[in-house]
């Protein structure tokens, strides 16, 4: 594809699947890069939820790629057209790589709104229908560094019929061809990368067909869509992802949409996924929770051999919480439900707990504030609760990805992952 500069440099492929490397040649100057397995910076309209640039940049080692979604942007098309200089400048983002996706990964879209010619997104003013022409006009005004091609992603529900799944694969391929056609004839989009979207619901043959066909197109990478609901169990998810990835070229990145739980991330990295969307810390923040799972991988293998979940170790607090509130270690339909990787600061037990959210955590929140204060901010419904939790959760989650890469580099993930797989049941209550 003309102007394509994005390049995936793999330095290690563990067990034939988990990939460690760097995605280079990103951004307008091609100077930026993103380590894989990696995670994009999740935003609402270019803003990490609750945070200003000052509070965001208390977090170190943020990813170089920021994700924006058309569901937030579409209603402002006219404004952006008048602005002319693209979304990045409009949002006051100066030195980030911009990736534009169709939907907000933190929100499940209602089904029944796609047609052969259109997809729908939901903004603050309600539903908006996008044709390929409108979709591409938006991309020209947003001027991202890379974007997700238009796709019919309505087949995430487990009861979707084979016929509907087939139709979604067909439509998505048609949309991709139409998008690429417009793309190649648009000077404004020169040097911008397109990711093709792999659909196929929970039907293996359709997944394989979608992957195989998409891989024939001149795309820079692949979005794996339709795995977000959680209604699909991890074994099936892993099986489908593995099958899809077999059809995809080694030298192009694979972005898995709508999956964010740390245990699922690990399983999907094992299946060969490179990139994730960073919405999970936001969901945790919205329910008044703080991520507190242990991802220390600097354990010696012998100890790791005896202590399960060295990567995803739950601390004592969590175990208590898990016992008390209705926890669910299994994938669940409701993404708003608390997972076992977090503590709920709304809980009365934190009223007089003067410890940081996570002992030893270097984030702004943990260095400056205590659980009792966070609890107070939540019960009094103060805005600072969201700010401080988002800082911690963002730092913790991106720290987890750093640890994950470190584990891959030192070949520890395999050891730890095997432990985890063998004991996965104990992650659930």
């Amino acid at each position, binding site marked *: 594809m003309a102007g394509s500069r994005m390049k995936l440099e793999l330095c290690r492929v563990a067990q034939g699947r988990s990939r460690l490397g760097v995605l280079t040649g990103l951004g307008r100057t091609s100077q930026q890069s993103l380590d894989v397995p990696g995670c994009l910076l999740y935003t609402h309209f270019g803003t990490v939820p609750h945070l200003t640039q000052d509070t965001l940049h208390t977090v170190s080692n943020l990813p170089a790629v920021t994700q924006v979604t058309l569901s937030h942007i579409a209603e402002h098309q006219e404004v952006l057209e008048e602005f002319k200089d693209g979304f990045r400048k409009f949002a006051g983002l100066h030195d980030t790589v911009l990736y534009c996706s169709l939907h907000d990964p933190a929100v499940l879209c209602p089904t029944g709104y796609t047609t052969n010619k259109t997809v729908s997104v939901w903004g603050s003013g309600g539903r908006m229908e996008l044709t390929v022409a409108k979709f591409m006009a938006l991309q020209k005004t947003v001027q991202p560094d890379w974007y997700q091609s238009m796709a019919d992603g309505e087949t995430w529900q487990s009861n979707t019929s084979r016929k509907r799944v087939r139709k979604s694969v067909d439509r998505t391929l048609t949309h991709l061809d139409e998008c690429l056609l417009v793309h190649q004839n648009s000077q404004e989009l020169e040097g911008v990368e397109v990711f093709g979207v792999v659909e196929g619901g929970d039907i293996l043959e359709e997944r394989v067909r979608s992957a195989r066909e998409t891989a024939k197109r001149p795309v820079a990478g692949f979005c794996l869509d339709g795995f977000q609901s959680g209604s699909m169990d991890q074994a099936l998810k892993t099986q489908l992802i593995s099958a899809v990835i077999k059809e995809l070229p080694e030298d192009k990145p694979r972005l898995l949409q709508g999956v964010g739980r740390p245990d699922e991330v690990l399983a999907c990295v094992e299946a060969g996924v490179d990139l994730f969307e960073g919405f999970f810390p936001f969901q945790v923040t919205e329910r008044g929770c703080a991520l507190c799972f242990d991802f220390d991988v600097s354990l010696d293998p012998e100890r790791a051999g005896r202590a399960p979940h060295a990567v995803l170790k739950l601390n004592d607090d969590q175990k208590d919480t898990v016992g008390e509130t209705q926890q669910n270690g299994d994938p669940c339909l409701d993404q708003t439900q608390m997972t076992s990787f977090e503590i709920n600061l709304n809980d009365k037990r934190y009223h007089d707990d003067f410890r940081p959210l996570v002992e030893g955590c270097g984030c702004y929140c943990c260095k400056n504030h205590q659980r009792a204060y966070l609890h107070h901010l939540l019960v*009094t419904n103060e*805005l600072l609760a969201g700010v401080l939790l988002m800082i911690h959760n963002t730092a913790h989650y991106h720290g987890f990805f750093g640890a994950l890469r470190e584990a891959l580099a030192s070949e520890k993930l395999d050891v730890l992952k095997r432990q985890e797989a063998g004991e996965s049941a104990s992650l659930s209550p």
Partner: protein
Amino acid sequence: MVKWLNVDWPTRLSTAAASRYAQNNMAAVVERGTVANNTQVDQMSLKKAVSAASPLTLRIVAECSVTKARACDLILPHSAVSTPVFMPVGTQGTLKGITVDQLEGLGCQICLGNTYHLGMRPGPELITKANGLHGFMNWKNNLLTDSGGFQMVSLVELSEVTEEGVKFKSPYDGKEIHLSPEKSISIQNSLGSDIMMQLDDVVSSTVTGPRVEEAMHRSIRWLDRCIAANGNPDKQNLFAIIQGGLNAELRKACLDEMTKRDVPGFAIGGLSGGEEKDDFWRMVTLSTDHLPREKPRYLMGVGYAVDLVVCVALGCDMFDCVFPTRTARFGSALVPWGSLQVKHKQYAKDFRPIDPDCQCPTCKRHSRAYLHALFKTDTAAMHHITIHNVAYQLTLMRSVRQSIIEGRFPEFIRTFMKRMFESPDQYPRWAVDALASVHVTLE
């Protein structure tokens, strides 16, 4: 949840002590001085000893030669404060969505906490355990706490004031609860604020008649009980609050009586509650005329830019108001020409910053158009405007101070007014009159 309020009447004071302040107000002061200094001297030097022991120093840096304005360095336990100063309000131990580092970054040296709210949640016991409100919210500069009385009157419907204190029904469970001067100070001692306010008998500024006089006298009696109840006079400053409604004689009587007490500072209370501005400024200027020069003067509840500039000219040093931060959350950004409603459609395609001359983090990065759009998507939009508005207030006061120091405050006022209003005939009458009273004429 309402533990502290379930306790009846003086808990910190013995019955003997309670009868003492009824007998002789000054005796309470003297006794406090005796305890604090452990010396045996006559009453007059004891008064001075109290003053010397108070953890506050006011250094007058400059006085305007035309108006009553002054620029001071107010040295408080946690840091020095440059006055005139606007103090942002962090009601529940947090300033609406802003981190303490951001607030400090804007140059804020002192902010407020509300005793009523913090006494309810999380409660004084917890805050004591957290090393006071400073420790609880991790704020390194100064804090001022109110007495809690104002919220009772403004938030709670069924409140009854007796000589003992304020009696009202809990908004949580309807239980009858009390706040006495002693209880208020006890909570404020737990909060550990650098400046505490006495419990005063607050009457709406639009009320007239004997109730105003009663409230004024009661506030004086309560001041003495507060002074006697202060368990940390060497660490926490207690300010008196001048009452007397809009009646000049009552104000004067209150001033005469309260200035006899050697408190570290004075607040002008009972204003800013919907009274005529003409009455408002006359009460302010009457108060500053009779307050001691060497002590700080705090005008409560004032925060509009014009009011700030005029009241600095009338001799006030400290101000607080929820307005700048509250209005920010509704998308109203303060600017030298008034305010700018970011959510209004006219800004959807306005790619300029809120105020091109503003140096705040919001104006340096974001446009009106982006903030307009962000208001539909994320609460961070509110934080951006809050930061801008706090920066606006603090910058305004710094400019005022600088002009006083450089001897050009009258000129500053004229420039400020010209920028704020489209034409001189839009200048509010009261502001013109108030400024004329301190020899500043606006053309």
